[in-house]
């Protein structure tokens, strides 16, 4: 999962979308917080973001993306991210909403967060689930202050506080850890 390219791509997206201003304010009555006017918004969209080398950085589909009036951050409803991984495989990440910081340093996934990895050689998947989880593309890192469940095949670990280096595939659960290992499969 090459997050560095993702971050660059997200920045390009923000810049590019700055040109495509599509202000829907007058057309449809939406639950828009009048205090926070959006700079622009996209509805029911799918996009692929590419890095400098032309390879895909990530895919994103969502019913609604809004750029905040400060022109720096993004709010995305029910985002579905697809991050490419080695060997043509991919990670899928979804949540009820996402907030993307200035220059995509942090992508905060909020509510029913689920990140699902590709099948391993043994046909096992890695999955993260949490209420809130942040992706830091530039550092290939994900982190969460709250409860996170990490499963890999039949091993399930849960703890409070997570730090994960996705390049090293190394995950730390910081406190109150419980783990369950199913008996051998054969």
């Amino acid at each position, binding site marked *: 999962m090459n997050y560095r390219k993702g971050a660059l791509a997200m920045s390009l997206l923000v810049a590019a979308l700055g040109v495509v201003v599509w202000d829907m304010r007058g057309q449809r009555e939406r639950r828009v917080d009048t205090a926070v006017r959006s700079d622009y918004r996209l509805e029911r969209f799918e996009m692929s973001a590419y890095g400098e080398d032309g390879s895909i950085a990530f895919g994103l589909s969502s019913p609604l993306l809004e750029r905040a009036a400060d022109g720096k951050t993004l709010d995305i409803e029910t985002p579905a991210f697809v991050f490419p991984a080695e060997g043509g495989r991919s990670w899928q990440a979804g949540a009820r909403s996402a907030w993307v910081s200035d220059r995509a340093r942090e992508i905060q996934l909020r509510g029913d967060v689920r990140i699902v990895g590709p099948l391993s050689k043994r046909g096992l998947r890695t999955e993260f689930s949490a209420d809130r989880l942040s992706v830091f593309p530039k550092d290939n890192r994900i982190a969460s202050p709250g409860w996170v469940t990490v499963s*890999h095949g039949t091993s399930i670990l849960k703890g409070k506080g997570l730090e994960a280096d996705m390049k090293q595939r190394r995950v730390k659960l910081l406190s109150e850890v419980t783990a369950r290992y199913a*008996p051998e499969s054969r």
Partner: protein
Amino acid sequence: KSTDRKQPMDIAADSSDMLLNDDGVSKICGNVRISQGTLAIDADCAEVTRVKGDLTQVTLTGAPARLRQVNDNGEPMDASAARIIYFTKAAQITLSGGVVIDQPRGSMRGESIRYDLNTGRLNGGGDGSRIQMRLSPKPEGGG
């Protein structure tokens, strides 16, 4: 019990540091408590080894690490050692470093003792270290 190893293994601890691979070692530390059927082990740290996605070995260290289990005859066994290695596939446990094993029929002390989870057999010494055993007298009229 011999059926213990067919149960899921539950671990509770303060923190964990793991690799998300089919083959990998996870380090779990801080008030580690492992339970699997009647088997219960308390330690400071545990290293959980998985091969091809399956749990194959758990290495526990403590000052000391403690193990308790009830055998198929319902007899309790209490053991303590600086290091306890549980080979899940082979259903073997090796205890090393100031090993003390207490059972109703007596106690055993040594530097290295192997315990077969299927048969309940204890095997000590053979590596140059000595074993001390104390057998408890049968209770009066015990037959």
